[in-house]
């Protein structure tokens, strides 16, 4: 430790012998770390946005169905409203919101066109924070309640049907007994969402849909969002324990593509981290090698004066410790400031169509947990220092006499 105390200030002074080179190295390390952290924060924001958008596209974090419904989603595979045990879990602290639905394949027909859709009976208030439909209606009005028999059409579907607000459409679907049911309904609202949602869904009141499909009070789906601190797997386990005869699945199983994108995001972050690390390593090795070869005579002198080879190695490594440490600190600080500056969100309004296509929300909220900051710093700093091991070993292996003779 005494030797470290001697070498540390010496290493610091050596760093500033060539200010320009040191500043360039600091820039390389700092920009590298900044880009790793910011890229990480943006990718996570993108992944979160994609996930949130996907979950709000009628999936939720978990869903409850009758067995076989997901393979053949018709009203014959419906289930009774939650019994006391299931209702207790759904209304407990681990579930933030849940929405009961009727959801079945249907045909919607206007004067001009007939198109396949999914007829979905909802309780509008219960859809708040569970699906997009709670906030997406306009022009027109939201469904007044579960008994409202008006329908909400997507903007694009309405265009394709050549229909609009206040007009009537005909809806046909198999009822709970497998018989074709048909009724007319007035378009009370037009909703805006992603194209697949606009084209694929027609909404009406839950009770109106149950009546239309002769389903009594039976449901085809419950969608739920967990509480902020709840663990999805634990919630699923609790639900399965009280409703063992129902299919209960979380979003990773319901939306494997979203899960894949989410997992891929982590992979991208790791790839980016290594790409940037290689650039940082090249920068550090290059500058340290130059610094070592410029000081061959000095290392020879130090050895002649009684420096052990290990001290020479330590001297070069301590230079790397300081320059990489300072670069990492600068990069982390600038990344923190950048992410803080974007805490109100990064608007994607210019990319609205693309964002909709990808199921993303139109504002990204970059964020990075302090633990991720610290993990990145604790990874890059020592690895950056380790890359200086090569030039450091070269310096330690110089023969003192040969080194003193070099010009």
């Amino acid at each position, binding site marked *: 430790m005494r030797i470290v105390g001697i070498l540390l200030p*010496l290493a610091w002074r050596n760093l500033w012998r060539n200010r320009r080179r040191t500043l360039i190295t600091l820039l390389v390390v700092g920009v590298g770390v900044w880009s790793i952290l910011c890229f990480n924060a943006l990718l996570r924001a993108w992944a979160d946005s994609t996930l949130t958008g996907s979950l709000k596209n009628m999936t939720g974090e978990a869903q409850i169905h009758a067995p076989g419904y997901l393979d053949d989603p018709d009203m014959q595979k419906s289930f009774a409203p939650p019994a006391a045990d299931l209702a207790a879990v759904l209304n407990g602290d681990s579930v933030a919101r849940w929405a009961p639905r009727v959801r079945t394949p249907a045909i919607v027909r206007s004067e001009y066109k007939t198109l396949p859709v999914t007829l979905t009976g909802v309780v509008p208030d219960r859809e708040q924070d569970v699906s997009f439909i709670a906030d997406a209606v306009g022009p027109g009005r939201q469904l007044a309640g579960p008994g409202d028999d008006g329908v909400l059409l997507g903007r694009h579907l309405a265009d394709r049907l050549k229909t609009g607000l206040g007009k009537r459409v005909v809806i046909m679907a198999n009822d709970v007994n497998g018989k074709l049911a048909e009724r007319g309904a007035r378009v009370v609202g037009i909703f805006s969402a992603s194209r697949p949602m606009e084209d694929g869904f027609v909404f009406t009141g839950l009770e109106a849909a149950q009546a239309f499909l002769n389903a009594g009070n039976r449901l085809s789906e419950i969608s739920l969002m967990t509480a902020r601190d709840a663990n999805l797997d634990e919630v699923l386990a609790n639900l399965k324990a009280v409703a063992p005869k129902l299919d209960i699945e979380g979003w990773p199983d319901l939306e494997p593509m979203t899960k894949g994108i989410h997992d891929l995001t982590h992979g991208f972050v790791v790839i980016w981290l290594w790409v940037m690390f290689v650039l940082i390593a090249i920068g550090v090795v290059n500058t340290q090698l130059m610094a070592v070869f410029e000081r061959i*005579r*000095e290392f020879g002198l130090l*050895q002649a004066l*009684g420096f052990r*080879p290990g001290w020479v190695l330590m001297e070069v490594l301590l230079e790397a410790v300081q320059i990489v440490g300072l670069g990492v600190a600068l990069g982390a600080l600038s990344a923190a400031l950048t992410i803080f500056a974007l805490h109100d969100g990064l608007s994607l309004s210019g990319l609205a169509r693309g964002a909709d296509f990808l199921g993303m929300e139109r504002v990204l909220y970059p964020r990075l947990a302090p633990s991720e900051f610290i993990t990145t710093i604790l990874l890059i700093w020592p690895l950056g220092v380790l890359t200086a091991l090569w030039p450091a070993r070269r310096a330690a292996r110089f023969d003192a006499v040969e080194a003193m003779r070099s010009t």
Partner: protein
Amino acid sequence: MTATVQCHDLVKRYKQGETTVNALKGVDLAVEAGEFVSISGPSGSGKSTLLHILGSLERPTGGDVVLDGVALSGLAKSEQADLRLNRIGFVFQAYNLIPVLSAAENTAFILQLQGMNARERRRRAFEMLERVGLAGMEDRRPGQLSGGQQQRVAVARALASRPAIVLADEPTANLDSENSDELLTMMSELNRESGVTFIVATHDPRVIAHTRRHLVLTDGRIESDESVAA
């Protein structure tokens, strides 16, 4: 008197491609404590090689060296480094100082490595710099000192740790005659005052004139060994 340096049948061979160069061909030498010895000879005669072997910077191919009671053969690299740190002072032809340290810090550097406390090594460094005529220049970095002043700092550093021997390789080679004379006078005085043994490899007749014993090395052998009236 006790011998600070004893060499017996010292041989050094270098491989240069296919040929072998015999730098030292059986050198026997004893240097007593407090002597001021110069070694001269033509280029390639083995002066620097002998100095490097005495300073434990190179290993001999054959023969024995005992420095201040320590047999150098068989020392590990770290033991050689410790020997240089604690018992040998070096003054080289050029590039003697660590550029990022001030004159006082350079002088105190070996003391610092030896573990001396900050106050004592500062006191010793200032005292040595005053003795070599550099009082008031303690905070100057090597780049702010002339060549002669840098050599004086190197001498101050070499003596600050009170080594058994100071080995100087062409210390005046890069100095003008005035600076050379000043440096040599100062080294002679320090040799007398401190009793530290000096061995200087040189081409310079002025250096030889300041020493009290003069060896001439030719083709790796000691051709003459004369005491000189100081």
